[in-house]
């Protein structure tokens, strides 16, 4: 069985009866559900699974406009960005919550409301607001791009986004470097030369299937030629399966 077919089979087999997906097993969470839904959609697979997942995801929206990560957690968090990406019919108002999380001082966004800016929530905010394709989000998207470009490790890539204070020599991670490159699609390649060089090295040893998947998606979005080495890493959870499927789709020209 082809890798993509096998991953889709695994994904469908792990869907919870309520329509959502767990991270590994257990209750459904917004993040793996959104990623699984995106992956299945890009592979045009199993509309039935999608029909069950969409209402699950829609029902996790809070009154403040954001999405909660799980039924046990009441507050809206960064997973709102993933819900926006996964629900094609969601309106512009869904972007208001994400745009409101951008910290004016840094231009980045947070995992959890009212806290500092980090790479992953900032990158996913760019992706979500860009998906809404509304002029009202042009300024927040630009703020987030500036944050990412300025918040890099000394090697030219990205890690989680910690301060360089007392951590000047902290190094980049493959997964966050790939995600940042994906979010920075359209940025002048001159600003990303060192990140491309770093990514070429990371591709030889991405450390995880997640790392390989984000790198491939990021480099494809940057218009780079990307090989698909037979992965030596195996999926550890639903996120990994979904991200690998998204990367396979990106390599075939189907993107988020």
């Amino acid at each position, binding site marked *: 069985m082809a890798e993509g077919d096998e991953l889709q089979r695994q994904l469908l087999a792990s869907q919870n009866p309520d329509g959502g997906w767990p991270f590994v097993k257990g209750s459904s969470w917004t993040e793996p559900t959104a990623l699984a839904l995106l992956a299945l959609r890009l592979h045009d697979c199993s509309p039935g699974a999608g029909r069950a997942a969409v209402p699950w995801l829609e029902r996790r929206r809070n009154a403040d406009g954001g999405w909660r990560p799980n039924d046990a957690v009441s507050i809206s968090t960064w997973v709102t960005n993933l819900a926006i990406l996964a629900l094609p019919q969601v309106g512009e108002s869904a972007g208001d919550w994400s745009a409101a999380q951008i910290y004016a001082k840094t231009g980045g966004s947070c995992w959890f409301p009212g*806290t500092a800016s980090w790479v992953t929530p900032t990158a996913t905010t760019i992706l979500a607001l860009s998906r809404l394709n509304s002029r009202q989000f042009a300024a927040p998207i630009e703020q987030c791009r500036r944050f990412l470009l300025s918040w890099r490790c000394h090697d030219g890539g990205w890690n989680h986004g910690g301060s360089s204070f*007392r951590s000047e020599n*902290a190094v980049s991670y493959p997964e966050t470097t790939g995600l940042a490159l994906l979010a920075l699609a359209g940025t002048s390649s001159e600003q990303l030369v060192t990140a491309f060089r770093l990514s070429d090295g990371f591709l030889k040893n991405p*450390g995880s299937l997640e790392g390989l998947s984000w790198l491939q998606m990021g480099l494809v979005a940057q218009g780079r030629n990307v090989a698909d080495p037979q992965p030596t890493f195996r999926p550890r959870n639903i996120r990994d399966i979904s991200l690998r499927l998204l990367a396979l789709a990106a390599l075939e020209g189907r993107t988020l």
Partner: protein
Amino acid sequence: MNRRYFFLGALSLVAGCSRRIGTRTAPVSIIRAASYSVDLAGIMRRILLEHRVAVSGKNVLLKPNLVEFDQHAPINTDPVFVAAAAEAFRSLGAKSVRIAEGPGHRRTTLDMAEAAGFFAALPKFEDNFTDLNLDDVTRVRLSRRFSKLSEIYLPNTALACDLLVTLPKMKTHHWAGATLSMKNLFGLVPGNVYGWPKNPLHWAGIDECVADLHYLFPKQFCLVDGIDAMEGNGPILGTRKHVGVVVGGAHPPTVDATCCRIMQIDPRKIRYLRLVADRSSLSLADTRQLGERIDSVAVRFALHPDLEDLHLG
């Protein structure tokens, strides 16, 4: 809580420990271990027996420190150390022994664990491991509040265990001064709620949250990997420091205070230790060492230049 440690102290007296244990003290064991190839499971079993830890029939959760992997730096609790702990608890009749961790920076937990050697050291590691960043959670109210938080989400695997065994690496920390048993509990906080890092806890006060977490898990035992430790710009960018000890005890503040003294750091200057000590009638000095004396194993740890004043003396 104090009654518990009075009881432990009294039990140690009855057991005829190598040093006399007074009342109202928390015993802390310091055992030499020159390398990871010595009989660590035997050492840990000895410590658990000496402290009369109730293990039989218990669901034990081992919480190592797994942060990032760099083959040149002792960032993580050594997997051989974790494997020895699992063997020790199983040999003393634990009903189950699981391993769990929720790294604070990266989401590729199992891949980091594999690179760090956990799969090689622990048979069926993946079957016995829970990524606490991906676990289902429960909201818990804080009864003894130190931080600005009134409640916190915690992973169900950690809440369900009978005995939480914290297995930290002995390291300096460029913010907190030292990261040991108590700080290791940060890894219990779920990333799937709070993010990577668990930034809401930083905003609520790192030291205060460490103290909050300490009181949320009253049934703990600590086994500190002080064989190859980390000095300097810890907890990630520091350098190897060989100490050659395993430090164990049931009372995390006094275990950590002992480790600090081994590192020649003043435990009273470690804010989270002071927070807990100030609200407890058991002070950081109410410690009786079993096994080696502190001064026989103490070795000065280099600290980040901004933190030099944390040194003893």
